[in-house]
């Protein structure tokens, strides 16, 4: 278990030393969301209607943009080989790296979500649910994204492929995340979409580390 936390700590340390990765994701998230008023008009009622969807799509794209950091650098400098040789099973290493990725990218997005909510005129009553849904849903984004990142690690031009591989798999998370947020904005019950969102994350927790580890072995082997 200490090896697991060692990998988490190492990745967090690298992210801190390099700096800017959280800021980059949050900046991208806010800028993309801020484009929408220019695209759909400044009418508060319109913005309120599209707000849940815009927040989730922007968060999804921000996560997507950060996925190349997950394995690529470690693959290129060879540290992934060393990590694969360690006694920690490879899927646990993947899980540790995904956890670090979520702490660096996912969590800042969750914290920034209310800000974007304000920009897009989301009703205040929906904010707790937005935060809860984001906390439940963003781990699934990191986990599923890891599969795409692992499949294309070590492939030239692999990065352009990741959106095509990952975005279709993101659709269920998007659906339930938006549904929970929109239901809260309309004062409707939110338990069902939130529970379904949690179940998606749990499922991704089971499938993604194993699938990603299998894909990484290809890049290493």
């Amino acid at each position, binding site marked *: 278990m200490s090896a697991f936390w060692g990998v988490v700590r190492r990745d967090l340390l690298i992210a801190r030393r390099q700096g800017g990765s959280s800021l980059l994701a949050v900046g991208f998230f806010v800028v993309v969301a801020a484009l929408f008023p220019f695209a759909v008009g400044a009418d508060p009622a319109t913005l309120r209607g599209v707000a849940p969807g815009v927040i989730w799509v922007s968060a999804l794209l921000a996560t997507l943009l950060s996925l190349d950091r997950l394995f690529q650098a470690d693959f290129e400098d060879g540290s992934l080989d060393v990590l694969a040789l360690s006694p920690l099973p490879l899927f646990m290493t993947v899980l540790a790296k995904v956890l670090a990725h979520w702490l660096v990218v996912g969590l800042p997005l969750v914290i920034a979500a209310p800000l974007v909510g304000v920009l897009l005129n989301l009703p205040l009553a929906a904010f707790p649910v937005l935060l809860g849904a984001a906390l439940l849903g963003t781990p699934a984004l990191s986990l599923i994204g890891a*599969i795409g990142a692992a*499949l*294309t690690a070590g*492939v*030239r*031009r*692999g990065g352009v*492929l990741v959106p*095509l*591989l990952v*975005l*279709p*798999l993101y*659709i*269920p998370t998007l*659906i*339930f995340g938006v*549904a929970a947020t929109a239901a809260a904005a309309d004062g409707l019950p939110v338990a069902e979409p939130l529970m*379904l969102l949690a179940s*998606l994350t749990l*499922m991704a927790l089971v*499938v993604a580390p194993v*699938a990603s580890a*299998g*894909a990484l072995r*290809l890049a290493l082997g």
Partner: protein
Amino acid sequence: MTVMSGWHRFANPTRFSRLSARILPWTLALTLVLFAAGLYLALVASPPDARQGETVRIMYLHVPAAWMALFVYVLLAVFSGMGYIWKHPLADIAAKNCAPIGAGFTLLALVTGSLWGAPMWGTWWEWGDARLTSFLILFFLYLGYIALWQVFEDPEKAARAAAILAMVGLINIPVIHFSVQWWHTLHQPASVFRAGGPTIDSSMLWPLFVMLGAFKAYFVTVLLWRIRAEVAERRVRALQMMQAEA
């Protein structure tokens, strides 16, 4: 173990080539006969629908294409699993060559669905239709699978990576289908393809089954063709490599 060795017998490329050469004329003939009969039954012999009129004839292309789109993806994932576990090049080649055919079926289902729905919906594309939306996502899954094969230079690595994606996709298909269905209940249903399926008269069911048979036979024929072509291609490449080394 007996089941396994049974499978292994067919995994030999030479035996496959011989066997498929013997099967192909029959499946080709079956395809032609079934399509001729099915199209006649569907377009001429079957009655127009009381409510939808002549547009119901699109169904005879749409429904088999949609069934096949799903069936081929499941088969692709099964081949992928066999290729991944037992490292059979032939299973990998079969999975790879399922993909373009399945993507073709999915596209056909999407286009015919759009054409069929257009008179009812008044638009060419209706997001409120859950099944059509799921098929659009299935189409994206096919595209991702095909693209993943393209980026690897080593076919063995490509096969294993694509197999992982196919198996993840297979797990996700029911999840995606369910979530789209769930999402659909939030947005007003505007479906031509009613949940549980419209009750179909036997005068329409028969042409539908014949068409499904025709699609299946077509699939088997084209898949065997494609696998044979790829096996031959790999053999040519191996011979060229040997020549270059000599």
